[in-house]
């Protein structure tokens, strides 16, 4: 068990290390001179100023040296300063990251609480009108783009009914963006749960459980659900990464003050230090979630633990 998790942590560290390299290279991937592009929109910057920025970013050195400098600063907790305003990037990100995490976790919660029971019910009623109806709903949910669903929810619940605020930050403001992200993911979980449960129900050990005379409720809860949830747990890890990505769109619709919105602003303003910091933070979050999911998987499936 611990060796399994140890391996995962090491692989995660490797992933983050590769990300740091890509982040350093990112600034060079843009055609043209990065500093000039950064300042293209602002008037009256003198060549001396540009030269100074270039030096402060270390862009006058060779790429390996730049990378080592970047790593050195990284280990000191320094992600650089924003170009607009000159605040420490780490501070800016940390101010907003909790908002995004709250949104992602709330969405994940909604997705699971709605999606898994629907999938389970559809599997239980496989082939009936209930099953077909739920799955049509699920396809509709998957097909609907975030921005459209978000706008529709906004229109009905905030503008027409006036139940919920249109935008801002606060517990009530969380509901609509979380629903937007959560519902489309619920549809994915519903479909996956359904097919996984149907798969498990056809397995021999379910027959064994019935042959022992166990009531259907116990067979489903104890024997089917746990085995059937394994693929769903894997999907949770993958979907969490997608949710962080989806947050970028949804945060902008609902003016939710998270890192996604910050990243979009930074991209428009060519604020490279923020973009680099954002990518790195994002990858750390995704890796941490993936490790947590693997650990959960090991708890659920004894075969993974390897005695």
């Amino acid at each position, binding site marked *: 068990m611990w060796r399994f998790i140890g*391996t995962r942590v090491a692989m995660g560290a490797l992933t983050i290390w590769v990300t740091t390299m890509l982040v350093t290279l990112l600034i060079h991937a843009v055609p043209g001179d990065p500093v000039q592009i950064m300042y293209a929109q602002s008037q009256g910057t003198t060549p001396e100023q540009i030269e100074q920025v270039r030096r402060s970013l270390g862009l006058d050195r060779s790429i390996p040296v730049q990378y080592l400098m970047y790593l050195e600063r990284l280990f000191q907790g320094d992600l650089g300063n924003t170009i607009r305003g000159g605040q420490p990037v780490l501070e800016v990100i940390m101010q907003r990251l909790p908002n995004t995490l709250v949104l992602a976790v709330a969405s994940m919660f909604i997705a699971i609480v709605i999606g898994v029971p629907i999938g389970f019910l559809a599997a239980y009623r496989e082939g009936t009108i209930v099953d077909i109806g739920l799955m049509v709903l699920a396809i509709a949910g998957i097909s609907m783009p975030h921005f459209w669903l978000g706008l529709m929810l906004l229109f009905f619940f905030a503008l027409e009914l006036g139940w919920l605020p249109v935008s801002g930050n606060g517990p009530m403001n969380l509901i609509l963006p979380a629903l937007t992200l959560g519902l489309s993911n619920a549809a994915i979980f519903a479909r996956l749960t359904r097919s996984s449960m149907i798969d498990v129900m056809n397995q021999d050990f379910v027959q064994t459980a019935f042959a022992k005379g166990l009531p259907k409720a116990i067979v489903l809860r104890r024997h089917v659900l746990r085995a059937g949830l394994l693929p769903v747990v894997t999907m949770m890890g993958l979907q969490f990464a997608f949710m962080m990505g989806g947050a970028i769109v949804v945060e902008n619709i609902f003016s939710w003050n998270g890192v996604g919105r910050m990243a979009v602003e930074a991209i428009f303003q060519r604020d490279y230090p923020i973009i680099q910091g954002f990518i790195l933070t994002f990858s750390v979050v995704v890796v941490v979630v993936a490790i947590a999911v693997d650990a959960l998987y090991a708890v659920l499936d004894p075969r993974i633990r390897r005695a």
Partner: protein
Amino acid sequence: MSSVLLSVRDLSVTHGSGTRAVPLVHSVNFDLARGQILSIVGESGSGKSMTSKALMGLLPPNVTATGEAQFRGANLLDKNIAPPRGTGIGLIFQEPMTALTPVLTIGMQLTEAMVVHGLADARDAKARAIQMLERVGIPNPKQRMTQYPHELSGGMRQRVMIAMMMLLEPDILIADEPTTALDVTVQAQILDLLRDIVRDTDVGLILITHDMGVVAEMAEDVMVMKAGRVVEAGSVHQIFQAPGDAYTRALLDAVPSVETASVDSKPTDSQALLSIRHLSKTFSGGRAFGIAASVTRAVDDVSLDIMPGETLALVGESGSGKSTLGRILARLTKADKGNVTLAGTDLLSLEGAPLRQERRKIQMIFQDPYASLDPRQSVGAAIAEPIKIQTTLSKADRAKRVAQLLSRVGLTPDMASRFPHEFSGGQRQRVSIARAIAAGPELIIADEPTSALDVSIQAQILDLLSDLKSENGLTMLFISHDLAVVRQVADRIAVMRAGRILEFGPTEAVWASPRHPYTKALIDAAPVPDPSRKRSARAHALDTFPMTPLIEAAPGHWVAL
């Protein structure tokens, strides 16, 4: 012995309803008494499993049972009555590897039904489960309770399964092919256990099987089924000595008997076609950062020669390394050490074009004809593929060759345009054979080619293989776990265990005077299709066989002793 437990009258099982109804079982009648062992015999599709599922109320949706099955004063087939699953009738399945829930502990699975049925409270259930594990011959029962199914071997899992069902104190136990998925030595142990349980608890046992050897060994009464009908029923002696029905006779004839040898081996002094020297292959499990946690020696310093025109059988149980050896020869797996030469060419060092050249000379036939043919490729295309790759024949000539090959393996040329799902298992295996011989190989590696087939089909495929051998001079490495089958086809036998060859020699010599205790154990464990000669000796403890280098005990007969 006389009290009737279960009385089945006019049991029929039907799939679908109305005009599209397909009968699966026709009007079956039988009685089962306490302490009686009744065997239902039949090949796939005979309806033997459907009969047991009907009694358990476990029929798939869309399948209905009619008739009467009186048990404890009620009709089991009455839909308004809850079937006495577990507490009345226990069911043991064929495949112990998948019949236990992988995510729950053994203890949980043993005790839960006792608690649900109110037979015991949680603590009492645990104590009884440990006792029962001990009873079915599982060492360290306390420890096993906290383990998961994947930590146990197939034989151990089948014991757990038996314990699980017996804990519910049923009157009837239905065992559906309980040993088919197990090695022959383990099969002997499980059959012993089942017989002991019947004797000690007076449970009535319905043993469903396709194996006449198992029937002869276990049953008192036999019911032979074919295509949903009972073709013959009677005592085991009656059935074996004076089978009344043609199908029963055919079934008995099809059993590869350990008594009759059909191979006349001709010793050859010629050069070996294939020669294996000091071949080794290890697999490592639990790899983390390139450091292996456990190492399995799948093939351990094996040396063998295969003479042109002979059939060499590689016999062993699961995990013996016999399939790995076959795969190394076909270059499907890489060896760690040693070398293999085919007619003087070093096989293992070849790469690229020369390797493709040599590949033509070695072809494989796999065990499962359902998985070894591409479902989206017509069988004609499947057979033509190796011809296309390995020869320069024109399209028309290829078609002609495919037609020839199909007739050669007992199919008709017009079948070339059909797809695998339109064929039965036996026919598919014929297609696999046609594909293997299509490019004119020098050596065929047949890995359990008949293990997935019914006995009557198995006999036909074995006949086909020996025809090909005598007419085309085919050289074959025949990998199998079944000594009786091997005896029928092989000139020489190599017995393998834990990656090593323990005994090696002419088939008759190994058979008549086995020198290694493991070979003896294997021969002893094989059920003999003769009810008057029930096997008495218990299977040997399996961990204590000598595994020294081979010495020549008699001319051409080598043994590791």
